[in-house]
């Protein structure tokens, strides 16, 4: 996909006007993260804060470590062999690397690059998370399913086929199903790893609208290859390069007036 030359200010949909990057109590904070795949050091001393109820985009060229970094935020990298992390990641001030990982993953949800619904019905896909987290004691399954599908803007399209296979819907719908599934456990943070890269523009637009609305309910971090997408949905943007966080600032600033030369080179399409 060609990256357009961005030399003039973005004229697309504006993001939140004055969003402070450093808020008093950030929802999540990563401090001095070094991450290793075996002997290979994939992340070098990354520190970044994510403010509550904001959307943060992580951009950068392929292989820069943005997905790797995102996957550390819910510790899903631990499922790979021979990975090691140094540093601290806190959620509401508490270091998540010390706590029980299943509880962390309930509070920090993730949506992956390709839709990955389970081979079950739409209904069972959504109910899976709440069921294993014991959430069905207080709320009924049907309520949770409707609420999650509405939050993911999918309810109207699938309400008559909840018990059909999750594979019987389109790719864009499957991805929204995965978002609904992640939302069903009421996460405080939602991590999205290039969620629209496998989708057509219409499905992409639906999901972007959805994210802008969702941030009032949870904190969102989205990795994206698409700079225009970052400009459309994100309040703040972080630029990664070769495993380092080069710059993190309000989206407007990153795209119109970046401080670092590497950022400017990437934004203007000199590489990447």
């Amino acid at each position, binding site marked *: 996909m060609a990256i357009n030359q961005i030399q003039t200010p973005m004229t697309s949909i504006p993001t939140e006007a004055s969003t402070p990057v450093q808020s008093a109590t950030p929802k999540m904070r990563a401090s001095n993260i070094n991450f290793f795949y075996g002997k290979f050091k994939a992340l070098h001393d990354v520190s970044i804060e994510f403010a509550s109820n904001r959307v943060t985009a992580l951009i950068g060229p392929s292989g820069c470590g943005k997905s790797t970094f995102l996957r550390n935020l819910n510790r*899903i990298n631990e499922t790979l062999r021979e990975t090691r992390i140094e540093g601290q990641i806190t959620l509401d001030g508490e270091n998540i690397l010390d706590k029980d990982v299943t509880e962390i*993953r309930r509070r920090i949800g993730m949506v*992956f690059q390709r839709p990955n619904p*389970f*081979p*079950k019905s739409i209904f069972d896909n959504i109910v899976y998370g709440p069921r*294993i987290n014991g959430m069905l004691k207080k709320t009924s399954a049907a309520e949770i399913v409707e609420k999650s599908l509405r939050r993911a803007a999918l309810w109207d399209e699938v309400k008559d086929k909840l*018990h059909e*296979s999750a594979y019987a819907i389109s790719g864009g719908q499957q991805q929204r199903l995965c978002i609904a599934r992640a939302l069903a*456990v009421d996460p405080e943070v939602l991590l999205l790893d290039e969620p629209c890269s496998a989708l057509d523009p219409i499905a992409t637009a639906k999901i972007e609208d959805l994210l802008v609305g969702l941030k009032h309910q949870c904190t969102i971090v989205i990795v994206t290859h698409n700079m225009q997408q970052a400009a459309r949905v994100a309040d703040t943007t972080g630029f990664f390069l070769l495993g380092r966080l080069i710059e993190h600032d309000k989206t407007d600033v990153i795209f119109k007036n970046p401080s670092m030369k590497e950022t400017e080179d990437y934004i203007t399409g000199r590489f990447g």
Partner: protein
Amino acid sequence: MTARNARRKGVNIFMLGLCAACAFVTVSTLFVILGFLLYNGATSVSLNFFTKLPLPPGQDGGGMANAIVGSAQIVIMATLIGLPIGFFAGIYLAEYGGKTFAFMVRYVADLLNGIPSIVIGIFAWTVIVVPAHHFSALAGSMALSLMLIPITARSTEQFLLEVPRAMREGSLALGANKWRTIAKVIVPAARKGIMTGMILGVARISGEAAPLLFTSLNNQYWSTGLSEPTASLPVMIFLRATSAYEDWHRQAWAAGLVLLALVLLANIAARMVISRGASLPR
């Protein structure tokens, strides 16, 4: 066309022809065996065959009812012992295997798969029959389960590994722990393949004669318990076929036909399980 091209074309055609001929031989072997069994045994497969006990040679009307029931008993018991062990071992290999122990388990399973069935029979004889001082259906089942375990473990492992990593991560990302993910997502996703592997494994052990020769031996009559010698189809085939009597030979053919029919049915069932489509809702 140059000489080189002509030669290459010739080699091409020759090799294709050779491969096709070998494929034909392979396929026709099955039909030849089936043909022999049908020709020699079809006339002896009667209602008597399924309902009567064996009679001395020369007397008409005997059957192999006890062998059919005995085989069923032995195979069912072997399945009850061997399938769960093999299944959970397969889960371990696919999901929990670290490096060293899993490597060892896998290697040993492959070795076990390669042990001649007659050696398994001698082993079971030494370990179970001799201390107990009698042959038994139970000993036969245990010998067969020793064969079923590594087959099931490796095929279960193979089908579990085919489930994409993305599905595992999707479950873990919702706060599920590893066992929950395996039980509720991975195994259901792989269940068709796992079931097929199990069906084929059971079909394989139900035709083995060597392990049973030393363990469950044979019985002219109905066995009344699991700790008695028990008749089984494969052993009956062996005994009848190597006997001196013509009508016992016919019975051996009939038993072979029945056994082959059962194995073919199991294979067809396995294929039907696989082909019921991957997108059925659960």
